[in-house]
């Protein structure tokens, strides 16, 4: 089976879908791996490293795509690149399937089996290939580091001969994987951390990392069986925004990560709350790329409000730690391929009935097979 990893075309993307370690593993399985030249340039891996690991390096992207039985990518492909794939090929990447209906149709039309990384079920068994988790985790860390580097104050408490510097107050909104890692990192740096999530079990998890859980009585809130949050009712949302306003106003750093699976993230921090914050505070919005939890934030940009609050709407936040992000992402790819690998046939087996593939296989055999996206 021929596996091909093209370079990312989105200019903000610094990650690579495969790193040399993953290549080595795949080659070990018996796959032929080729990568586009320059694949790892932005995350610290030269072509030579890939060659050492057993891949062939090609500059001819189109040929690579055309020859491949399986393509790995970080981001969804340009629409016109789908046509280059051969029928029966497998394509694995983030696909943003809720929005990219056009893309999905193309995949189906091209008879490509497209697997969406976003849709891998959040089961214990599937964790090794769960790229959402592996990336969110690093994003949580990076968010705190970025916040720390953009502030004109420090995180830890210091009692010094020149007076006491009080610890930074950090508020983490949304305690998923990214939120948890943000809590852990901020705690490590010595901050006082408060956290909120609509899922009650998430509050316990925050406490297990030493954060203070903000408890707001919103009535029943539900999660999906995958552990994702469901959308709040407008009433509940209003209540939440109200109850957390005071915490925000007192915080030096606010990190928002609140997402709702398959929907636009809710706006949780309105302009008036931002206006109530102290000059010099920082808000990092990890949901910015898909719309943002903070009113007025621009993905990929840092804006300073009139009252001196920095709004950091980083896009591709994992890309700031591209080397490690690529390492775990590539491991996810390799784990997935290994999981479905047929040793005899040396191919990736498409098994639409398998619990995991049922979750993440979007198109197969010329049609959209995923329940949610069937037209």
């Amino acid at each position, binding site marked *: 089976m021929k596996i091909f990893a093209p370079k990312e075309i989105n200019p903000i993307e610094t990650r690579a879908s495969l790193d040399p370690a993953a290549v080595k593993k795949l080659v070990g399985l018996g796959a032929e791996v080729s990568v586009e030249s320059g694949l790892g340039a932005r995350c610290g891996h030269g072509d030579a490293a890939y060659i050492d690991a057993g891949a062939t390096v090609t500059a001819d992207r189109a040929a690579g795509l055309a020859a491949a039985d399986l393509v790995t990518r970080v981001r969804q492909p340009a629409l016109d690149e789908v046509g280059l794939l051969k029928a029966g090929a497998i394509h694995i990447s983030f696909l943003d399937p809720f929005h990219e209906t056009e893309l999905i149709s193309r995949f189906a039309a091209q008879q490509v089996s497209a697997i969406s990384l976003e849709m891998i079920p959040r089961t214990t068994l599937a964790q090794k290939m769960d790229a959402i988790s592996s990336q969110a985790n690093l994003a949580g860390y990076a968010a705190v580091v970025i916040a720390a580097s953009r502030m004109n104050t420090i995180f*830890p408490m*210091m*009692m010094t001969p*020149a*007076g006491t510097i009080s610890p930074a107050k950090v508020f983490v909104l949304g305690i998923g994987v990214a939120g948890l890692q943000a809590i852990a990192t901020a705690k490590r740096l010595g901050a006082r951390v408060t956290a909120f999530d609509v899922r009650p079990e998430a509050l316990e998890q925050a406490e297990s990392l030493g954060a203070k859980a903000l408890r707001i009585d919103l009535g029943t809130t539900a999660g999906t069986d995958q552990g994702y949050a469901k959308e709040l009712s407008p009433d509940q949302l209003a209540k939440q925004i109200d109850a957390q306003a005071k915490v925000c106003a007192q915080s030096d750093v606010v990190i928002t990560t609140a997402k709702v699976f398959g929907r636009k993230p809710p706006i949780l921090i309105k302009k008036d709350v931002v206006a109530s914050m102290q000059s010099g505070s920082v808000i990092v919005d990890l949901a910015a790329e898909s719309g943002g939890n903070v009113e007025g934030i621009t993905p990929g940009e840092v804006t300073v409000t009139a009252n001196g609050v920095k709004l950091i709407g980083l896009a591709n936040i994992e890309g700031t730690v591209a080397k490690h992000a690529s390492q775990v992402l590539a491991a996810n790819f390799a784990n997935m391929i290994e999981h479905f690998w047929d040793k005899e046939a040396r191919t990736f087996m498409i098994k639409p009935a398998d619990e995991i593939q049922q979750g993440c296989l979007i198109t197969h055999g010329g049609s959209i097979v995923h329940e949610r996206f069937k037209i």
Partner: protein
Amino acid sequence: MEKLIDLAYILSSILFIFGIKMLGKAESARRGNLLSAVGMLIAMVATLLYKEVVDLKLIGIGLVVGTVIGGVWAQKVQMTGMPELVALFNGFGGLASVFVGWAEFEFGKQTDVVTEVAIYSAILIGGVTFTGSLIAYLKLAGKMSGRPTLFPAQKAINAVIFTALIVLGVIYVVQGASWALYGIIGLSLLLGVLGVLPIGGGDMPVIIAFLNSFSGLAGAAAGFVILNKVLIVAGCLVGTSGIILTIIMCKAMNRTFGNVLFGGFGAAGGPAGKAVEGEMKAVSVEDAYFVLEAAQSVVFVPGYGMAVAQAQHAVKELGSILEKNGADVRYAIHPVAGRMPGHMNVLLAEADVPYEQLCEMEPINASISQVDVVIVIGANDVVNPAAVDDPESPIYGMPIINVHEARTVFALKRGKGSGFSGLENALFFRENCRMIYGDAKETIVGLVAQFKG
């Protein structure tokens, strides 16, 4: 019948043993007390069955009178009045032993040496217990000044009485002279008074425990007088466990027993001694435990030594234990403690000490004199009182944490090493400071172990 009585005695001894053991643990103490009461009842009933015991009516009257007085008294006393009541009861027990010994003497059946020694001991110990407890009662009840009453030639007088008691004892045992016995009774009563008078009210609990141990021994002596096993066993149990308890209580006050007995201070609670220059007094981890165990407020003052020993985790644990034990625990951070600004903060944050418990220098200094125990963990310069009281000192004028004003200070150091500034530290020579030598982590871990053991 005799056999039955003896078996009953064995049973009641066993009950006393369990009773005392259980009294030492919070969760079983009340049951322990009940058990020992049952043991007492059994012993009494068994004794009434002796065939020599004939005058049941008189005994009955005595028992009823005693029960009513004791019961009513114990029931209606205010919570706050309990300790002095215990002292009084204890005194009665001692007097009872005197009476038993005296009565046996009056019956005059015994002539052998052992019995006479026993009678002598019962009267002597019982007598001292009686008047000593009485004085303790009066002091605690506030019917007599709690201040140590010192009188001239005190030690000499006591020594004379002591000698006289021994001489009279020999005369009594050898000759059986009754005047000697009366003399012994009188002098032992006097000794009790004179012995306890010079001891301050604050030390009375220890003295009561001690006298209690004494009254146990008096009971055991009475047991030898009438050759009664349960008296010996129970008396001896009380005697020895009482001694241990006395020592434990002394330690909890950071005093030695000798100090309590002959120190002649303690009236106001705090030691009144002058600073003894030139001596650093060490204390063992175990002794420190007893003080900490009784402390209501504890302040940790960490310094560079805590960092060197990497003792922060252990310190945090000790802090939590002390809190659970009911003490108010804070961590006082001097701004220059350690070797970099915020050095202590890093370490304590790592150990997860809540920010709320961290205290800056000024607020802690404002209340330090109310603090029971300060634990200085490898800090030196930042608690050097020379900074406030020695204008010659190079650090004069630097604000320090005034730990020397706390009630008790434990200073944890490896040895006589000086701090960053290289100065001697007068704190370590103060009367209220005790050194616990050794690596700070080892010491703290040891203290934690004491609490858990």
